[in-house]
């Protein structure tokens, strides 16, 4: 089946290699009009060729930037490679950004052209462009759109559909038949392949410049390490502006030659995954968590027999599943029971989720709850963790097969050297380390040394087996007033492992004790409330319900018991908490677009509440500003209850060893 890996030091060259090695094999699929449309590698080459020629004919030059804004669509992946053919640099941007955020990235990247999905994005670009035209600033000159719906009355000559762009490209190609090959030959591995703007938990986004070598060498190493081939299937559903999608759906895809499938719409992703049945799958922990929550909710509504069967076999799977997956010895009877469970429970469950064919799955970005992690592994999914970031083209450490643990991120990836600085910060060097931040040498100098060492800003250590363990952001690790070590993210993650808690924000640095804000999970708590007959009309009402406070207080008490076992962290138990009246939202600036809480921002915005948590009050009033999806703003007033959580005073004699 497999025709081997493709050769080439740039994506256009890899594309030519793929079109020669496996011309008739599928390269991309997209579900449209209810049917999976398919393109072979030969067809993709043809599409990219017409796009590249079209962009050149429209005036895009070597070194220019091309903004790409939309959901995962084949045309956008092709556009990225098409831009690279003529030496231009694609800059994918988050499609759900509001105009203001987009404006910054567009201006900073100096993008001349944009390829966008639909009217929504076109309107945003015009909104950004209007004032710029008056002041004479540089602005997006040409916009190419995919979806012509609602665009009938737009008659600007700076607007063109992608189909028209390709038609113009074909005409240009017919006149200049040598152009495409000549342009590809001009590129090499050292060229900048892409600029990715990191959402950043602080300050303005930074443009990470990655070369072809950064992405392709990293992708090649990981493809070889995990044995990926053109027989694999991947669903591209994570934002194109995120480094992971570029490495999985473009880097590894072009090196191994496997087929990438694009979902029909963001609302159909889970259905589409089920239809495709990917063999290689990446999802951040929150997606694995959501799927598990869904399964648990649906099981609670299932018949008694099914519930009992699920409980019995899941118990067995948790006991022996991971051992069977890792090929460790397991008693014969357990093995037999597991085989029966596979027929009765695990197989049908994995099939329902679309995970039957998964050979390899990764998760990264945040710590994953041990329960969630074990759930998938016990069902036989080879779920592993990796540690990576935009500045390292994803792969920094990965867990090798057979050495998978819930609380580490694995061993250094091929070609990567890792050191732990005296401050506890993780520092590494490797093929994926980015060139520099675009137009920001100062920021580059802060994190990257001349000989290629990159400071991650994460605090961590190696355990006895040589696995890296990340505990928190180096800058966030603090101390309580009595000198106790306080790692907020560690607390938050422990809380978030409970299905009822969506987000937690901990405070405690230079304070007497640790306190938290809680965001409940509407779906999980809602379903819990329904079973108890608690009525509620909105998120806000549910969040203020005293019985929900009791539920959360119990869960915090459990975290405190757990912390008490740890000599270093026993002092940072959570004393008081409150449940926020609104969900933390990226539109309000409380989270990044990748849904990481911006703790500093939250602390400032809700300063009144933080003070109330320390003042001993039993309630606090707050008025906050909320931003709706269309960018309008409104005010929200609330009176929040503050509750105390039980702490465990007698810590068991603990032995915690920190290796370094």
């Amino acid at each position: 089946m497999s025709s081997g890996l493709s050769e080439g030091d740039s994506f256009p060259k890899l594309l030519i290699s793929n079109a020669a090695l496996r011309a008739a094999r599928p390269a991309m699929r997209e579900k449209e009009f209810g049917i999976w449309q398919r393109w072979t590698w030969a067809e993709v080459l043809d599409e990219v060729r017409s796009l590249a020629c079209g962009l050149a004919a429209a005036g895009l030059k070597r070194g220019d930037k091309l903004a790409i804004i939309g959901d995962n669509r084949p045309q956008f992946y092709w556009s990225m490679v098409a831009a690279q053919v003529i030496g231009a640099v694609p800059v994918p941007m988050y499609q759900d950004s509001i105009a203001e955020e987009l404006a910054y990235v567009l201006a900073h990247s100096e993008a001349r052209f944009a390829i966008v999905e639909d009217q929504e994005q076109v309107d945003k670009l015009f909104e950004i462009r209007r004032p710029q035209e008056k002041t004479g600033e540089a602005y997006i000159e040409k916009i190419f759109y995919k979806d012509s719906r609602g665009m009938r009355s737009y008659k600007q000559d700076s607007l063109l559909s992608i189909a028209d762009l390709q038609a113009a490209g074909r005409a240009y190609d017919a006149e200049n038949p040598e152009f495409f090959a000549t342009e590809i030959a001009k590129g090499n591995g050292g060229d900048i392949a892409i600029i990715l703007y990191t959402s950043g938990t602080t300050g303005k986004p930074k443009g990470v410049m990655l070369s072809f070598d950064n992405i392709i060498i990293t992708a090649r190493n990981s493809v070889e390490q995990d044995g990926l081939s053109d027989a694999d299937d991947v669903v591209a559903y994570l934002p194109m502006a995120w480094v992971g999608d570029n490495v999985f759906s473009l880097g590894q895809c072009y090196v191994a030659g496997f087929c990438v499938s694009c979902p029909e719409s963001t609302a159909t992703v889970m259905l589409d995954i089920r239809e495709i049945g990917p063999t290689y799958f990446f999802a951040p922990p929150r997606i694995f968590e959501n799927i598990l929550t869904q399964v648990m909710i649906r099981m609670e509504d299932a018949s008694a027999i099914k519930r009992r069967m699920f409980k019995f076999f899941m118990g067995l799977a948790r006991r022996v599943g991971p051992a069977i997956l890792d090929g460790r010895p397991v008693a014969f009877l357990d093995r037999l029971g597991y085989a029966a469970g596979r027929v009765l429970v695990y197989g049908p469950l994995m099939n329902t989720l679309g995970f039957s064919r998964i050979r390899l799955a990764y998760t990264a970005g945040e710590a994953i709850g041990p329960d969630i992690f074990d759930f998938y592994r016990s069902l036989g999914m080879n779920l592993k963790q990796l540690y990576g970031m935009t500045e390292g083209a994803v792969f920094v450490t990965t867990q090798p097969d057979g050495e998978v643990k819930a609380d580490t991120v694995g061993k250094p990836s091929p070609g990567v050297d890792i050191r732990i600085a005296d401050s506890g910060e993780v520092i590494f060097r490797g093929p994926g380390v980015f060139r520099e931040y675009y137009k920001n040498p100062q920021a580059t100098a802060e994190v990257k040394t001349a000989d290629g060492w990159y400071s991650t800003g994460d605090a961590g250590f190696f355990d006895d087996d040589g696995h890296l363990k990340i505990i928190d952001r180096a800058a966030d690790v603090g101390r309580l007033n009595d000198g106790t070590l306080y790692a907020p993210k560690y607390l938050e993650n422990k809380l978030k492992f409970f299905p009822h808690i969506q987000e937690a924000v901990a405070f405690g640095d230079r304070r007497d004790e640790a306190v938290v804000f809680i965001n409940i999970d509407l779906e999980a708590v809602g379903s819990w409330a329904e079973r108890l007959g608690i009525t509620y009309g909105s998120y806000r009402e549910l969040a203020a319900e005293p019985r929900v406070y009791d539920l959360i207080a119990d869960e915090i008490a459990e975290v405190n018991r757990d912390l008490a076992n740890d000599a270093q962290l026993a002092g940072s138990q959570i004393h008081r908490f409150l449940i926020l009246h609104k969900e933390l939202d990226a539109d309000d600036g409380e989270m990044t677009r990748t849904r990481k809480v911006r703790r500093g921002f939250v602390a400032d915005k809700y300063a009144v509440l933080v003070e109330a948590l320390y003042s001993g009050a039993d309630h606090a009033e707050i008025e906050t500003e909320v931003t709706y999806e269309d960018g309008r703003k409104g005010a929200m007033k609330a009176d929040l209850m503050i509750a105390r959580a039980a702490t465990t005073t007698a810590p068991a004699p603990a032995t915690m060893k920190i290796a370094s």
Partner: protein
Amino acid sequence: MTALAEAPTPLAKSFGGPILTVENVTLAFGGITALADVSFEIREHEICAIIGPNGAGKSSMLNVINGFYNPQSGSITYKGVTRTRMRPHQAASQGIARTFQNIALFRGMTTLDNIMTGRLLKMRRGLFWQAIHWGPARAEELEHREFVEHVIDFLEIQSIRKTPVGTLPYGLQKRVELGRALAAEPDLLLLDEPMAGMNVEEKEDMCRFILDVNEEFGTTIALIEHDMGVVMDISDRVVVLDYGRKIADGTPAEVRGDQAVIDAYLGVVHETESTS
């Protein structure tokens, strides 16, 4: 660089001649007069709103247009053909499709199947071919399915394609009903309170779909709606009924300033009220 300083502005809409002319229509149920001597025109490609207080005869008007009620006097001229009596299926085959005030979908059937029923009048194969579902009938079904998929894509309801409509939230059911009407490829689309019971976001979505249908396919739309904001925003023309009579007819701006309309909505003491 193109020196384009303007934001996208829709081209001025151009309307054709009248697609539907209602002349002196009177409709009574026993002693109750639902419509009294109502006349107006709907021109091709326009969005015409029919508004009025409760019981003004709006739904009756739609029912007369699509042949569900037959007026006692007056005539309806549709695409140049005048008739006094028309059966609903004749209206449908002539290109008039509608949605209902109280959703009238097949609750146990999926979104896809419900919208497919909108294609029924376009299917040419008889019961025999449909039953064996092979050869010509299959080819025909594929063709219709393709059209229905375009409707699904247009209304962005891919994720509920295979969901039984009875389990869907109200706003989505309304959208499926619009889909079924669109599947009939109507020339004239009648919408009976398309936004009733919706929240702001659902209303905004529905407005966008109505405008897009009108713009993309050139479909003429007659709609009944209570939300005045919506009516004033999306209509090209507004016809106001009160107690079965037409009291105003014009652009949203004209109607807004009309004293008779203001009286009807704010409630001036009517003779009929004072006698009761």
